[in-house]
């Protein structure tokens, strides 16, 4: 009755450290001076670029046939205001991608100036960037040009401020108790304490 389910042996992409130099060489050959930095981490390579070059680099990683970073993993923001190490700009948008063919991950760290926090959206390349970019817009106030539906996602639509910025205090603004309370029954008609 209970026939064993088909369980093909794993053909999961396997991490291949030997491909990290291949990746680094390809990107350096194509981008050269446009790279602000390159850092090899324990399991991937992080490329730092200016905001204007980020979309080109992500497109290159995805569409270059010998690389094939087709799997979107993550996209998040970082605020480096008063960070102990010198960084080119205040904000960074960090996109992580996986190449099933090469078996490595790559990370693109795009530095975004605080004076004009905007960069090109990756939604045309990866559908998964839609929500993650909305989240960055919501929590950091970084605008993504070409995003089809750029609006807040976690905070309420009428919320003011961007909570994950370093100059946004942990306490004092917009705690749960400060939100308006909506009643299903008008307060005047609801039974008062002690009545029912």
């Amino acid at each position, binding site marked *: 009755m209970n026939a064993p*389910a088909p369980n093909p042996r794993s053909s999961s992409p396997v991490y291949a450290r030997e491909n990290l130099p291949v990746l680094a060489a390809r990107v350096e050959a194509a981008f050269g001076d446009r790279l602000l930095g390159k850092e090899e*981490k324990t399991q991937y390579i*992080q490329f730092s670029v200016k905001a204007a070059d980020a979309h080109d680099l992500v497109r290159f990683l995805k569409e270059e046939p010998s690389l094939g970073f087709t799997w979107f993993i993550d996209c998040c923001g970082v605020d480096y205001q008063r960070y102990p190490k010198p960084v080119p700009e205040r904000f960074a948008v960090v996109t992580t991608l996986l190449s099933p063919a090469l078996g490595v991950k790559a990370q693109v760290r795009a530095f975004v100036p605080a004076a004009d926090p905007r960069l090109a959206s990756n939604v045309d390349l990866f559908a998964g960037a839609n929500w993650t970019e909305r989240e960055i817009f919501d929590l950091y106030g970084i605008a993504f040009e070409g995003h089809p539906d750029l609006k807040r*996602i976690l905070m309420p639509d009428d919320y003011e401020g961007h909570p994950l910025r370093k100059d946004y205090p942990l306490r004092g603004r917009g705690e749960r108790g400060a939100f308006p309370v909506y009643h299903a029954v008008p307060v005047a008609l609801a039974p008062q304490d002690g009545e029912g």
Partner: protein
Amino acid sequence: MYSYEQEIEERTDNVVRMNVGPSHPAMHGTLRVMMEVQGEHILRAEQEIGYLHTGFEKLGEHRTYNQFITLTDRLNYFSPLNNNIGFALAVEELAGIETPRRAQVIRTLMAELSRLADHSLCVGALAMDLGAFTSILWTFVEREKLYDVFEAVTGTRLTTSYTRVGGVAFDLPAGFEKRVLTILDSMEETVDKLRGSFYKNRIFLDRTEGVGVISAADVESYGITGPIARSAGKTYDVRKYRPYLVYNELDFDVPTYTQGDTLARYKVRLDEMEQSIRIVRQALKLLEPGPISALDQKHALPVKMSTYTDMESLIHHFKMIMPGPEHGLNPPVTDLYSATEAPNGELGFFLVSDGSSNPWRVRIRPPSFINYATFSKLIEGAMLSDVVAILGSFNVIAGELDR
């Protein structure tokens, strides 16, 4: 001024706007879906999230690394142990801390038991949402037994906070192995019972087969991972991709289906439970006596009992806990993305360190958030009754979704 009655009167195409949630028994947690429906067909849909947003990432910047572990419990609250382990591994990779062998085996065991608990809830609830109430009772019995084990090991059932940076908080209790083996046997029976009840059940098949099909191209583009990706023919499992803990010593398969529909997602989860049972049986044999926390006491908290009896441990404990620039865990000034395989997919932590005892930035890459983004696309064109089936197979946990 908008008036619902007026809109109904004016519209001639029979299209009705419908809202489900955020507080609705079928919308696991606090999810809200707004749909335009024509009869029973959904023309357009949009989800709204954020009703459970708690600001974990902001809070994380004001907590030490060890304090953040209590917040990871509240991410995917059906498998808190996986979150604890994922975060501890990320911090250890960032700071370069070696964990002792016994701690690694214990973590592997707890991760797989927790995966069993999470999957058993999901498969039970999916069938329950489709009207088969019995299945959730079967799986809840098993889940209860597992939670009893978690209680015996960690002291709590839900908010386990079991790991510490460098190891785990407590050693396994006496009789752990025997107790787990008994549960595995009954868990196997339950998996078989579920297969027997649903794989050929006409009603269940009609409501899941070919419903909510995800294509392999969408999986990569949306960044979907975990059981949902593996149901659509994309075999990516972090445990195989880059084996952490002791997974490289264990023999297990990654179940994969190619249909990408709700039924395939259900089958993948049942098969994964079988594999988890296999892993736990093997990992139990790897248990050897030894320390459960890193001996490098500049970076790892000493075992709590020793701080009561031993002067040196107490000093190390103070050094780790006290606030101030010279105290606490001070990893190098850098950033790191580290991922583990949680029950719903790749659970990643992107940590930015400024060299102090608190992280500069904790980014949680929640599998639920990334997976759920595709939901409205799947239900567009489907029937109203499919919404519940597709949602159940996604296992979206609001705590992880909204953080």
